[in-house]
């Protein structure tokens, strides 16, 4: 087990190093200086001062070493577009928002997905199962930006105008942009969570069907245990094992929010900053966010894997793809 954890730690370290190197050199492959693009009519002195301020006048190798050293000190540099904010500062304010959105979406995905999966397994090949499968396939097929746009239209526009026609009062059930109180979080969380509902429902269904056919369920039934007890104590509990594995892997990705949903709903999370930094050519911010994102995903999946290794002894032998 010690060997497995060490091996995983080694791979994680190499991965993070590869991401940093790749990001750094890819971003420096873009022709022209990022400062020249930002403002065309600045004087020569100002440009020189800015260039040396961002360390862009040094040779590439030296810049790379400085960049890695700074990252090891938790310093991702200063943003170019938001000129007085450091990238670390932006991450500190944006990450909690993204994590909040992501965890809400995950909560929706897990609770509804598991419920849908159980129902369709219990009504295998009957109406409810068909209905749930259709919902699941639609959830996988329709991307979040289409669902988000439709949700915005339904709640921001159609529902409001319908209520206005009948009751002659202005009314908005859920706000369609920004991130302030609980009401603001509903639509974006659903837009982000619907995809995970679909994935989890399908997984839960097949896992439940698998468990229902097992011998220990027959044993439990022949011992005279009630159906409810069998369902909750044996079937659901055992069927949840693969679901928990998948959800564990999803946590890292979903906690960093979503590029599309955050842009669509104007939520000041990591995804929105990332998309803005790409369009505004804010290279330091793009680089910093890419690396932060990669480090977070790698470390969280590492943590989840090590946790499994501690909980489930079977993983120790098959963990790293052999």
């Amino acid at each position, binding site marked *: 087990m010690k060997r497995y954890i060490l091996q995983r730690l080694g*791979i*994680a370290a*190499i*991965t993070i190093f*590869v*991401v940093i190197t*790749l*990001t750094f050199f*890819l*971003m420096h*492959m*873009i022709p022209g200086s990022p400062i020249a693009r930002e403002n065309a009519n600045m004087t020569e002195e100002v440009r020189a001062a800015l260039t040396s301020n961002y360390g862009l006048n040094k040779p590439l190798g030296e810049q790379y070493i400085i960049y890695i050293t700074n990252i090891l000190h938790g310093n991702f540099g200063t943003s170019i577009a938001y000129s007085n904010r450091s990238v670390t500062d932006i991450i500190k304010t944006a990450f909690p928002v993204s994590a909040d959105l992501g965890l809400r979406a995950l909560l929706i995905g897990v609770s509804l997905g598991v419920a849908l999966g159980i129902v369709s397994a219990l009504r295998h090949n009957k109406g409810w199962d068909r209905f749930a499968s259709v919902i699941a*396939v*639609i959830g*996988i*097929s*329709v*991307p979040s*930006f*289409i669902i988000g*746009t439709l949700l915005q*239209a339904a709640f921001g*526009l159609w529902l409001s105008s319908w209520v206005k026609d009948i009751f002659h009062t202005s009314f908005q059930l859920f706000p369609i942009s920004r991130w302030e109180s609980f009401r603001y979080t509903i639509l974006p969380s659903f837009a982000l969570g619907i995809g995970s509902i679909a994935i989890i429902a399908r997984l839960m269904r097949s896992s439940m069907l698998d468990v229902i056919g097992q011998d220990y369920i027959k044993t439990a039934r022949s011992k005279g245990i009630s159906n409810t007890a069998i369902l909750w104590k044996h079937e659901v509990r055992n069927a949840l094992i693969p679901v928990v594995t998948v959800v564990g892997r999803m946590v890292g*990705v979903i906690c960093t929010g979503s*590029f*599309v949903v955050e*842009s*669509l709903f104007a939520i000041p999370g990591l995804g929105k900053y*990332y*998309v803005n930094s*790409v*369009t505004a050519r804010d290279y330091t911010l*793009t680089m910093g966010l*890419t690396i932060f*994102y*990669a480090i977070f*995903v*790698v470390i969280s*999946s590492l943590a989840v894997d090590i946790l499994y290794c501690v909980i489930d002894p079977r993983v120790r032998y098959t963990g*790293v*793809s*052999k």
Partner: protein
Amino acid sequence: MAVQTSISEGNKDFSRIPKDIGSSQKINRVSLTYAQGVMRTLKQNSLAMISLAFIAFIVLVAIVGPMILPDYQKQDLLHALEAQSGAHWFGTDTLGRDVLTRLVRGTRISLSIGFIAETINLVIGIIIGGISGYMGGKADMFIMRVIDIVVSIPQMIIMILLLTVMKGSVGTLLIALCVTGWTGLARLVRGQVLSLRENEYAMAAQVLGASKWRILKTHLIPNCIGPILVNYTMSVPGAIGAEAYLSYLGLGISIPEASWGNLLQMGTDQFPGALWLFFTPAIVFALTMLAFNLLGDGLRDALDPQMRR
């Protein structure tokens, strides 16, 4: 024996049938090859068949459509943002371009990206997975470590980063999709090869002096074709979706070229003022994704021997 004789002699309702060894040995069940069996199961799945027909139709439109329809870039500013009419069946966009023509062109571009990207991934995956599984030892160790690293980097990040550096076009999108896309198939193929190479027929071929390459080509790869086919069917919509996602963020195919992604982007931009600009591409896009996923599901069921009766 004694009982039997007494029944047949005592009862006039029954008569003795003369022995006919030839016909009793006959196998009445029509023998089916694997492929025929799969097709038969697939044909019983109406959803999968409808999906297959829909995909065939969309592919046909993508091939034939642009030849029949006029230039998809033609602007007509006097008739910008018009709803459906006789002249423009699906309306016009912000610069007066015909939505139907652009949708058909977009279908060609998006489908090409999906199919080409996944075919490249398929070839890379089969080669690398095959080598890894068959060679074993150090080569396998090395390839698997590389895959572990590639997989743990979030795919969307790599694609966005590459498209920030390169200008978004069909070629750069294909590169972005294929840099990391082959890993899933490589793992799948490797797993299949590992389980198959222990089979006796592979050993028999080896004993008979077949080269490693020949065993891989004629025995191992044809035997793991099933799961690979399912994986391919499920990955094509993934690639099409990734194109839409990236173009939506303004990183993929840029106007005046048409793709489902940038049509959808314009649709959401003009939403809800010009509903046709959103709903036409959204419906076509969602139906195509649905069709691929349903067909993939159907294929998986049909290829699974336990599901076949």
